[in-house]
């Protein structure tokens, strides 16, 4: 039995997501007490940003390499802090994208903001989980608001359908996760990673293998790896774009880090077994994601498959099974947050009320109509493709380095080939923007300062991390090297 007291370490450990939760509840209460006081969309936005800053500062202050809080079940080590930062960034940029966009599609800003903050709280719990039950609670706290966010556009049938599909498959995956936890608990007598890792030697092999299998299925669902990816394109297309961006980056980052920590600490002793499974999952995910993305002509469905492909790259880095691989995962998540959120922000900027402009042909002539926006999109796409000197290139480089370092040469070759294939559909968007003339009339868009700020921040991140990756990379590597 784990001894759970409450001391300074515990208070610091829960501080980041407590702050986020309090701010989320604050937004809801404001709605309750001042239902008619509609101060527009900016008040909840700045209030949420304040909460995000508070959470970021709290998680930096909570950073410790000492023993984990709550009897070793919840940690505020470097990995957790780095994950918190990526998720806060993802939430912040999604909110920025949503400020005017949610108003445009008729969603109440406060609902959107509070749900995003609740989801973020769950992501933060997942990043620090060192116990299967904490992992489970983190996944649920993250997923329940995410289901609602997918369906936040209540008048829209597509949004409702996305929510329903996401919910049913998510709940299905949850039951697999729990069954896996139950089997590991039965085999090892504990749910804490430290205890599992110590007991793996004598545990009945079949129960452990079945448990690991079920956990990988469930986490694979959340990350969206093939063959558990089929919900992703539907949900990404149906959900409002700002929500899609949060799901494609934040939810995925938390789930990937949860998987990496579980496999690299608790189940380190079964490395040979899970590494083989992850190898095949990664290859299938990269290849199918990229090949199917070629056939898409919807600019939200294409990134959906591209994000499936990126899940494959991340799983490949976990399959390396070394702290180096873990560091590459963290760094790539940060890079991925900037470039992917930037691309989604441009998709929002191209759309207007009742005209989502989501087809590839809607991008025709964007380069001459709005050169700055077009130019930013080119950089995001080139970065997603992995062209130097942008951040995406550096991220992929370090994944490949980690793979070669652990003798997984074939996996790195397949990853490089996949990057080449992905060039086809990313370049197609660029060609559409710069070499085709606009087919329809595009009236002058309204000014959207927050959206442009979001594009700008993402752009700075994408370029900066490409040119000066050292600081973030060292932080990512050190945190996984110190992982116990």
């Amino acid at each position: 039995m784990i001894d759970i007291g409450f001391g300074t370490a515990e208070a610091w450990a829960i501080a980041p997501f407590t702050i986020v939760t309090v701010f989320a509840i604050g937004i809801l209460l404001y709605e309750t007490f001042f239902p008619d006081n509609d101060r527009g969309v900016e008040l909840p936005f700045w209030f949420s940003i304040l909460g995000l800053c508070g959470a970021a500062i709290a998680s930096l202050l909570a950073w410790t390499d000492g023993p984990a809080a709550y009897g070793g079940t919840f940690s505020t080590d470097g990995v957790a802090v780095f994950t918190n930062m990526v998720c806060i960034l993802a939430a912040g940029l999604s909110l920025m994208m949503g400020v005017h966009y949610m108003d445009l599609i008729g969603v109440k800003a406060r609902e959107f903001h509070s749900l995003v903050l609740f989801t973020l709280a769950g992501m933060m719990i997942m990043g620090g989980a060192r116990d299967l039950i904490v992992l489970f609670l983190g996944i649920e706290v993250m997923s329940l608001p995410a289901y609602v966010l997918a369906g936040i556009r209540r008048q829209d049938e597509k949004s409702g359908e996305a929510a329903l599909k996401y919910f049913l498959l998510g709940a299905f995956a949850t039951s697999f996760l729990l069954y896996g936890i139950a089997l590991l608990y039965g085999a090892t007598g504990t749910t804490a990673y430290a205890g599992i890792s110590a007991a793996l030697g004598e545990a009945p092999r079949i129960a452990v293998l079945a448990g690991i299998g079920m956990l990988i299925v469930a986490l694979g669902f959340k990350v969206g790896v093939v063959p558990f990816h089929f919900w992703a394109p539907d949900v990404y297309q149906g959900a409002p774009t700002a929500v899609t961006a949060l799901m494609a980056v934040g939810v995925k980052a938390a789930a990937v880090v949860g998987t990496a920590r579980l496999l690299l600490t608790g189940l380190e002793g079964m490395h040979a077994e899970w590494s083989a499974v992850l190898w095949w999952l990664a290859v299938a995910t990269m290849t199918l994601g990229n090949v199917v993305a070629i056939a898409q002509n919807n600019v939200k469905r294409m990134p959906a498959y591209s994000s499936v492909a990126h899940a494959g790259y991340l799983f490949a880095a976990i399959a390396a099974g070394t702290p180096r691989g873990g560091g590459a995962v963290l760094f790539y998540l940060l890079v991925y947050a900037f470039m992917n959120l930037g691309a989604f922000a441009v998709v929002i900027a191209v759309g207007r009320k009742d005209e989502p402009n989501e087809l590839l042909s809607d991008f025709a002539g964007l380069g001459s109509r709005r050169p700055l926006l077009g130019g930013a999109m080119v950089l995001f796409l080139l970065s997603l493709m992995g062209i130097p000197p942008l951040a995406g290139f550096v991220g992929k480089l370090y994944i490949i380095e980690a793979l070669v370092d652990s003798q997984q040469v074939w996996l790195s070759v397949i990853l490089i080939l996949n990057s080449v294939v992905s060039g086809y559909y990313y370049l197609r968007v660029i060609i559409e923007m710069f070499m085709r003339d606009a087919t329809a009339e595009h009236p002058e868009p309204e000014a959207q300062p927050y959206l442009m700020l979001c594009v700008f921040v993402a752009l700075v991140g994408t370029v900066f991390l490409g040119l000066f990756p050292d600081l973030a990379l060292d932080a990512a590597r050190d945190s996984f090297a110190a992982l116990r």
Partner: protein
Amino acid sequence: MDTPVEYYLVLAAILFGIGALGVLIRRNVIVILMSIELMLNAVNVTFVAFARQQWSVDGQVIVFFVMTVAAAEVAVGLAIVLMSFAQRKTINADEINLLRW
């Protein structure tokens, strides 16, 4: 006379299988939800059986977590089903198919 723990584990595995099958082959969204609940309860039986086998209370405590989360999940899930029903007047999963690859 004590019933061997294996009996409970096999029962739970069968229940879990029935639930999983239900999710995969039934088309009524409400029945799919019930099947998911069946799977979660199968997991609960497994936890309690293991807790009994190891003579520790951890497994029983976990069951409370599972039940609480399951309740929250159903609340959100039924709300989503209601919203979807209001939009299309159907709860048949096969007819909810605007989004297709």
